[in-house]
């Protein structure tokens, strides 16, 4: 078993995930003085309105610039149109920054958003960022990556200083960001800033002396931009998801800053101790990740450490360089827990996956909403994957929340299991598709 290594595969890419423009929903909440303008069609608008549910009624700081036939056929001048809309936004909402989200349509009609933004920016006297978060190139959470990569260019230049500077990147709820900041503070490491901060005007300064470290696995473009364009030094670490991940993340940062970590063993052990009631529930249970949000490697690694067996890790896109430390930790964890290495399937094919789920009959399938109900009807327990993106899952403090999510369907279904109706489709139907 010790010689075994991780296996990578790549399938057809016919899988279900959210469109990357969905990043608007959490980013507009995080960056409180921003306004997000999605330049796309009715399809984009319909997705946002339905996926974000009630939020739309709270006067959100985002809107669609809905392209009409005249825009597509270039009868209307897109520069004038965007200028008009941005002036209106400036007047109605007065944001500190307007973020344009480019979509599939703007890609196909080759609308020069990057070219127009600086000109309109000058006219309305307000920064305009351009992020191409489209479904042609990216999946779900990668949308945030494109926005943060664009934002990295706008961070002020840092002043050289003798003290090492550390900027963390990745959008987290303010509370969670503060928890991680304090965790490092306890080790005597000062976080100089976050990309993004709660306000656009507070973006951290970047430059050649600055160390950067990511908190989410889907931020590879941002990492590249920080290294290549802003000359920052990237700390490659596993991600602070689960107590094992958080510990490894802190250790790696401490190592770079030449600090010997204090009390980390105890801290981690204490958290595991607090999880014990949940751990007995997940012990030796099997999991199948269908893959749709790029958190899969880190979550799988944590769940294996919790005693679960992971059959397959589906993932939309696998950046082996950015996730190198995380992949190493996954391998190490598998050896330590003496379980077989899971197969990692990039660009999965949902239809094939369902065949494999049928053969493997895992105890838990982590999947999108399109497949959850049909799988449950066939007696397969599922957890809705998108919840992991919206729940607080980072750091020591929130480890319990991950297991709360993972065990919820297990707890619910064990309540119902003796009723005798866990399969809720007729035999013919269940045979045909599962």
């Amino acid at each position, binding site marked *: 078993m010790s010689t075994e290594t991780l296996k990578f595969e790549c399938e057809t*890419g*016919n*899988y*279900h*995930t*959210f*469109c*990357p*423009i969905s990043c608007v929903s959490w980013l507009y909440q995080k960056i409180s003085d921003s306004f997000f303008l999605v*330049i796309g*069609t*009715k*399809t984009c*608008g*319909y*997705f946002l*309105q*339905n*996926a974000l549910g009630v939020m*739309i009624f709270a006067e*959100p700081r985002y*809107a*669609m*610039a*809905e*392209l*009409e*036939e005249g825009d*597509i056929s270039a009868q*209307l001048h*897109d520069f004038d*149109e965007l200028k008009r809309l941005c002036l*209106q936004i400036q007047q109605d909402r007065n944001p500190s920054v307007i973020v344009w989200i480019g979509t*599939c*349509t703007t890609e196909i*009609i080759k609308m020069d958003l990057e070219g127009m933004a600086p000109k309109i920016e000058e006219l309305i006297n307000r920064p305009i960022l351009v992020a191409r978060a*489209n*479904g*042609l190139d990216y999946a779900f959470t990668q949308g945030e990556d494109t926005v943060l990569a664009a934002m990295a260019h706008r961070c002020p230049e840092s002043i050289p200083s003798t003290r090492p500077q550390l900027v963390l990147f990745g959008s987290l709820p*303010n*509370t969670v960001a*503060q*928890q991680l900041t*304090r965790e490092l503070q306890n080790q005597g490491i000062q976080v100089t800033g976050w990309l993004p901060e709660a306000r656009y005007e507070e973006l951290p300064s970047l430059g050649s002396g600055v160390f950067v470290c990511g908190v989410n696995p889907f931020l590879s473009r941002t990492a590249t931009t920080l290294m290549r364009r802003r000359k920052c030094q990237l700390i490659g670490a596993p991600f602070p998801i689960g107590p094992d991940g958080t510990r490894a993340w802190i250790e790696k940062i401490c190592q770079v800053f030449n600090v010997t970590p204090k009390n980390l063993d105890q801290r981690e052990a204490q958290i595991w101790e*607090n999880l014990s*009631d949940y751990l007995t529930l997940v012990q030796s249970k099997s999991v199948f990740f269908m893959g749709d949000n790029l958190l899969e490697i880190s979550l799988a690694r944590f769940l294996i450490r919790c005693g679960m067996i992971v059959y397959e890790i589906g993932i939309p896109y696998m950046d082996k360089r950015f996730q190198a430390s995380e992949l190493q930790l996954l391998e190490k964890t598998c050896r330590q827990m003496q379980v077989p290495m899971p197969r990692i399937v990039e660009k999965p094919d949902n*239809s094939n996956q*369902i065949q494999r789920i049928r053969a493997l009959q895992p105890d838990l399938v982590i999947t999108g*909403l*399109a*497949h*959850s*109900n*049909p799988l449950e*009807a066939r007696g397969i327990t599922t957890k809705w994957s998108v919840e992991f993106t919206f729940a607080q899952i980072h750091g020591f*403090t929130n480890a*319990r929340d991950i297991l709360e999510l993972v065990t919820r369907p297990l707890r619910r279904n064990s309540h119902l299991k003796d009723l005798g109706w866990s399969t*809720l*489709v007729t035999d013919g*139907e269940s045979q045909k598709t599962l």
Partner: protein
Amino acid sequence: MKLAYWMYAGPAHIGTLRVASSFKNVHAIMHAPLGDDYFNVMRSMLERERDFTPVTASIVDRHVLARGSQEKVVENITRKDQQEKPDLILLTPTCTSSILQEDLQNFVERALRTTNSHVLLADVNHYRVNEFQAADRTLEQIVAFYLQKASIQEGQIQKTEQPSVNILGIFTLGFHHQHDCREIYRLLKDLGIQINLIIPEGCLVTNLRKIPEAWLNIVPYREIGLMAAQYLEKHYNMPYVATTPMGLVETASWIRQICTIIENQTQKSCQQNYEKYIDQQTRFVSQAAWFSRSIDCQNLTGKKALVFGDATHAAAMTKILVREMGINVCCAGTYCQNDADWFREQVQGFCDEVLITEDHTQVGNRIAEIEPAAIFGTQMERHVGKRLDIPCGVISAPIHIQNFPLSYRPFLGYEGTNQIADLVYNSFTLGMEDHLLEIFGGHDVKTVITKNLSTEENLLWNSGAQMELQKIPGFVRNRIKRNTEKYARSKQIKEITVEVMYAAKEALSS
């Protein structure tokens, strides 16, 4: 370009997909970028569908953009053909694919050489039609395709022995469609009329050749089904009834229209039986007629209401409120702009003002100006109502999961009139109650002494912790406060800091 926050009707491909996934054993393949298959989520969540939604995407990615789809679409079609063995595969263009201008028809023809399924390209222009229009057109397209395939000659058509009808336009993700369908079925059974086919919900495309065997077609909702009915009238000489049997008056008129058509074909009079049935149902079986006559409903007289929704439901609701309940509809409106003339004609004389718009802010502003006592609208109007403290009954799509009730809730037929009466009455009384409470100063004017679990004299929240507490959403804040204090007391901590809060969360075992 248009600045938009919200829309009433979805994009065209949603309509096409609704038709495809309503039929049995039909598979839709969207030519779309990653993430455009959100339809599957809606169907699986809102309808709580047990089966996998028969919709997949042939992904348009960067490579397709550079080189065209080439073999990809054809391969995806052939693969689905082998895996699922559907009767029909419907290739569905999206807004993205329609500007790529690939020759999708050519893909269909190439795929046809190797597939056992039939393959069709949905004929829908993304930038000109909305969800409803696209669904209407796709349904007509499929019906026409299968009838032409069957190549039935004039004179060959064998009508059913007993009078029978086709119901056109029962759909997945439709507003109370399943319940309405059951109610219509019950009603027709009472009248001795058989149902030949329900299209498209649960129907096999291979059965579509039986359409002409019915005596007439019924189109319960104007938005979807009318085109197919008109096609069938033109080519197969089938009469249709496009009245919506919603409310007592309209249901009666709907029955009479069906009666007339059947009489024309049998040359026998059945009017007397039907009239007896209508009278019996109206006065004694349905409770709505009696209910609006009862003294309780006197209070509703002249109350102001605003109605907004799709053309079918908004028009029917306006007429019910005015004609059957004596309520004053100040403003009736629809977002079905393409059907504006019909709508105006329907509600003429029933309301003070007609509002035709797709802009929800306009509707919201009108509500704020009029300040009706109740709103009957879509989910959007319900939220406007919440903000303005005006009760709202939801009568039309767009809708949320709560509008897919498990219990029997038709809007059509005689049971539908009961449901609507409840809906109207409950909306208004709730409004009244609120109003009275306000006049008399709330439920209880005495200061409520709550048993507070925190003994605040010995626990001090420092300013950082207080700020952190404020960040926590209101509905869980108290619980977190209590848990933190419980933890602090157990650890004999006097001052609560942010660290203590986090430690409490970490230590907390449910």
